[in-house]
């Protein structure tokens, strides 16, 4: 900032010629005041904890001492920790269950509800309304649905004389149960992103397509989907970042069980750092999660930056 001021052409040219012309774009230190509050909170609440977390991950630390430097020791322990490896797999499995489903159902809902009728407006609100609920409410609702014998699902299955799948206790179904609750909870955002993308497609392109004899399928495939391609990728990446941070649903619905099969990375971190007070190990696991999400976020940055073939 200072450099630019000193070498600013107006400043040098003006010397000895006439009164310097004020450059309204010249940097001024007092403008810093405007960003200072944000920078303060950014530094204390984000930057500092981030760096401290990295520092912690190289130390053997608990609540009473910040302990000795152990180098990559914590990371080595994670590498040999079956529960941690299981939690990484669980997290990927969960993302695999939820992200494509959220994107596809969100797209489908958006395509269905992208019209100006009152019904569509009501349904849009309904589908979005679950997003405003807290995770506690969401898991409560789905526990009521899934609970054996008296739950909604059991009741419905009971009408047909069948036994409902045990979504909370069956090892092969527990993660699917959490995924179902999560999809129900999170469907609003992808739907809204797709809706806003759909509404930005100019109407006259559809009119041109109608004059070009395109049927509904050709219009969807050749006009609509290519037009929202970037939003589709964006939704995928946002959901990867979000679903990698699974915690509340798993904690409240299954406590990570049965047999750690629904324990995601964040729950592992919580267990390690705040229940077993192994802060160094927890910090190291956090750094691994941080890197996983960072990769996804970088992908998002790269995708949104290349504006390739947009007209």
């Amino acid at each position, binding site marked *: 900032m200072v450099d630019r001021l000193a070498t600013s052409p107006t400043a040098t040219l003006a010397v000895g010629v006439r009164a310097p012309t004020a450059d309204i774009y010249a940097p001024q230190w007092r403008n810093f005041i405007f960003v200072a509050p944000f920078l303060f909170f950014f530094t204390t609440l984000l930057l500092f904890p981030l760096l401290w977390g990295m520092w912690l991950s190289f130390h053997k630390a608990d609540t009473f001492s910040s302990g000795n430097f152990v180098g990559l020791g914590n990371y080595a322990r994670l590498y040999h920790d079956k529960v941690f490896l299981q939690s990484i797999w669980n997290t990927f499995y969960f993302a695999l269950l939820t992200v494509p489903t959220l994107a596809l159902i969100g797209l489908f809902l958006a395509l269905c509800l992208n019209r100006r009728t009152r019904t569509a407006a009501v349904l849009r609100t309904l589908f979005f309304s679950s997003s405003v609920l807290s995770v506690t409410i969401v898991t409560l609702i789905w526990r009521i649905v899934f609970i054996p014998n008296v739950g909604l699902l059991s009741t419905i299955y009971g009408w047909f004389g069948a036994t409902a799948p045990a979504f909370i206790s069956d090892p092969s179904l527990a993660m699917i149960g959490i995924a179902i609750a999560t999809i129900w909870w999170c469907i609003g955002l992808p739907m809204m992103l797709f809706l806003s993308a759909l509404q930005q497609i*100019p109407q*006259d*392109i559809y*009119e*041109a*397509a*109608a*004059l*070009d*004899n*395109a*049927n509904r399928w*050709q219009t969807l495939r*050749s*006009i609509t989907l*290519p*037009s929202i*391609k970037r939003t589709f990728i964006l939704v995928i990446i946002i959901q990867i970042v979000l679903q990698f941070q699974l915690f509340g649903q798993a904690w409240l619905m299954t406590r990570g069980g049965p047999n750690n099969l629904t324990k995601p990375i964040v729950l592992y971190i919580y267990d390690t750092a705040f229940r077993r007070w192994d802060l160094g190990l927890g910090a190291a696991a956090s750094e691994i999660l941080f890197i996983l999400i960072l990769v996804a976020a970088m992908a998002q940055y790269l995708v949104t930056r290349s504006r390739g*073939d*947009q*007209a």
Partner: protein
Amino acid sequence: MTADIEIRNVSKQFGAMTVLDHLSLSIRAREFIVFLGPSGCGKSTLLRMIAGLEAVDSGEIAINNERIDHLPPGKRGIAMVFQSYALYPHMTVRDNMAFGLANIGVPGKVIEARINEAARILEMPHLLDRKPGQLSGGQRQRVAIGRAIVKEPKAFLFDEPLSNLDAALRTRTRIELAQLHQRLQSTMIFVTHDQVEAMTLADRIVVMNNRKIDQIGTPMEIYERPATKFVAGFVGAPAMNFVDATLDRSGKNATARFADGISVQTEIASSQLTDDNYTFGIRSEDVRIVAAGQGNADGVVDVLERLGERTLIYARLGDGQQIVGSDAGNSRVAVGDRIGLAFDGQKSHLFNETGRAWHAREA
């Protein structure tokens, strides 16, 4: 391929608002028709109804004596060029042009040949592999026209296609469109609010105002014998002069008297006229500038507009009315001069309260 288009008694409502009110119109094969009118007069709606993009509430539309108003847009055998061009942004120019043909199963070789032919006509073979985002406004316009040409439609519809171009390009494209019409010998319907486009392109102009057709005629008919006061005022720049007048119908031809005693002998037969109060209308080029006292009226020059080949003179009469007259390009008149205005009775028009027009007998 070409087609005559018949519009019979067509109406259109948007909710409680009537946009088109029982409109009828015959368009002959190979004709270049321009729908001219101000914003909101329904001209675009009428075009979109022919295209099938708006439903016809009542009445019918036929192409070559076959009713098409119940057909979807793609089955009507017409092509449309949109104001915004409406190119598919993610497709190359070639794919934009091929899309409509591929959808109806035209063989690839035929598509390729038609695209190459259209690209040759429009001088854009080098653009075929680009995407719309990489083209200038004028080039996109060409692609939009090319996309219409390859369909070999029975009729071309243009919805204000020149309004997004700069002035120079608009003039050039206008000439190219006229040449294209001569070359393709196809029926073309062109919607515009620009009277210069209408006058220069049209075989016949359909002047629309307020849900109805005011007049259908050749450009010169519209210009010289406007059917209504609206047409007279809308077509021609500067707009026609209008002055309230009372008529002296005692002679063979009516004499118009203005409020401050000025009178103009028209060549409009008194026998046609039934009332005494009319609006007198005359175009600027039919008001000659003469020395003060030599014309029908005297005025003081308010404003001069030098257009090069002629000079427009805005003169204020004694009663404050402004009249636009026309003088030579090198006119020596200056602002503030007192001048005489000579009205050409042969070129005068009279309009009654409903806007209906009377003109001099045809020479």
